[in-house]
């Protein structure tokens, strides 16, 4: 049975946390546990979500969890998966839940190693596009043009000058059994990807865009809207890679103007028309690359 909003349990396994109002990452964590259930063990590297959930004695996860060192998530997951194997524990889900920085920068090597080893775990990167826990510094997943405290925009500096690293393709290059991109704003899509990941043996990586009102500079009530705009403007795509095949889950014929997305966030308020042009061009190239994968196995 496909998971849907209707058949999800009401029970909360993630509660009482101290994340900001409207935190996208918190939505991801909450929904993930709804699908993955009580026999999930979460590994949380240093990040917003770990910082706002496990301050003695207030513990916001109702499942087993471990706050882990920042660079090591993939390796800790491997060790846990190996222990499950050694102990014959079969119905346990070993879940990594890391931010973008903890995934694409300092945690990339451990993740790459764990994926290569083929250990059985799910890894979710909730992508708020900067180091939020330490106060909005750029990460390898910060998008072009964004203001952060380490890519400031005073005196007409552009903000971040690089485009987001492509975790999805890096994982494809690892020939991972399953990986997907998703968004907090598309919960059905996300839930089904989680459910699928739960069934597949081996490493699974989900890269989920999770708007952050504090770091992005939008009202806390707009988290979902911003997420939707990212997809509708083509700046974020929803796709899957499974059995070597790429699927694009929403494949729009045309995109909304990127400005619709940018104008709602303070981090982009300095962008110029020229920047929009650069960004749209880059977006179009990325979509071309993505769509090219579709033809792959015909």
């Amino acid at each position, binding site marked *: 049975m496909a998971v849907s909003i209707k058949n999800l349990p009401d029970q909360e396994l993630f509660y*009482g946390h101290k994340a900001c109002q409207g*935190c996208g990452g918190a*939505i991801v964590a909450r929904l993930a546990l709804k699908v993955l259930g009580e026999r999930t063990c979460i590994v949380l590297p240093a990040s917003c979500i770990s910082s706002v959930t496990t301050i003695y004695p*207030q513990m916001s996860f109702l499942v087993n969890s471990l706050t882990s060192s920042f660079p090591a998530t993939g390796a800790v997951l491997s060790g846990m998966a190996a222990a499950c194997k050694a102990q014959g524990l079969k119905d346990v889900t070993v879940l990594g839940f890391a931010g973008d920085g903890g995934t694409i920068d300092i945690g990339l090597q451990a993740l790459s190693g764990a994926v290569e080893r083929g250990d059985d775990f799910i890894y979710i990167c909730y992508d708020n596009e900067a180091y939020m826990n330490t106060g909005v510094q750029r990460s390898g997943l910060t998008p072009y043009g964004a203001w952060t405290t380490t890519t400031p925009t005073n005196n007409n500096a552009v903000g971040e000058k690089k485009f987001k690293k492509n975790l999805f393709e890096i994982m494809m290059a690892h020939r991972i059994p399953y990986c997907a991109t998703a968004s907090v704003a598309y*919960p059905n899509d996300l839930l089904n990807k989680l459910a699928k990941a739960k069934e597949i043996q081996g490493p699974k990586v989900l890269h989920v865009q999770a708007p952050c009102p504090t770091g992005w500079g939008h009202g806390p009530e707009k*988290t979902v809207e911003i997420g939707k705009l990212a997809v509708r403007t083509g700046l974020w795509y929803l796709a899957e890679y499974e059995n070597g095949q790429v699927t694009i889950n929403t494949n729009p014929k045309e995109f909304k103007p990127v400005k619709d997305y940018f104008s709602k966030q303070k981090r982009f308020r300095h962008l110029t028309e020229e920047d929009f042009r650069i960004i749209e061009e880059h977006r179009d190239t990325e979509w071309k690359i993505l769509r090219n994968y579709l033809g792959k196995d015909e």
Partner: protein
Amino acid sequence: MKPKVVREYKFPQTKEEMPFGPGSEAGVLIDVNSGWRTLMPIIDYGKCNKCLICWIFCPDGVISKENPQLEIDYDYCKGCGICAYECPKKAIAMVKEGEKVE
């Protein structure tokens, strides 16, 4: 049922009562978050069709769907307003804390 704060939480009084190393019981809440709110969501049950959009998006998971009517755990609602903003029926109003009209 939402997890509830352990209002009577007793911090260790002696060495022996300390947890063993930095590990302790999951899901222990000794603190509410209601103070974070300046605006408060109020559901208009007349409009609500229980589509669960608010329920799915609430970052704090404070909306319950198990009873016939959706219920909000105001101890942990931070008042972000996503529920109201996303509600297709406009069934949730964000009201200034303390000015709640019931």
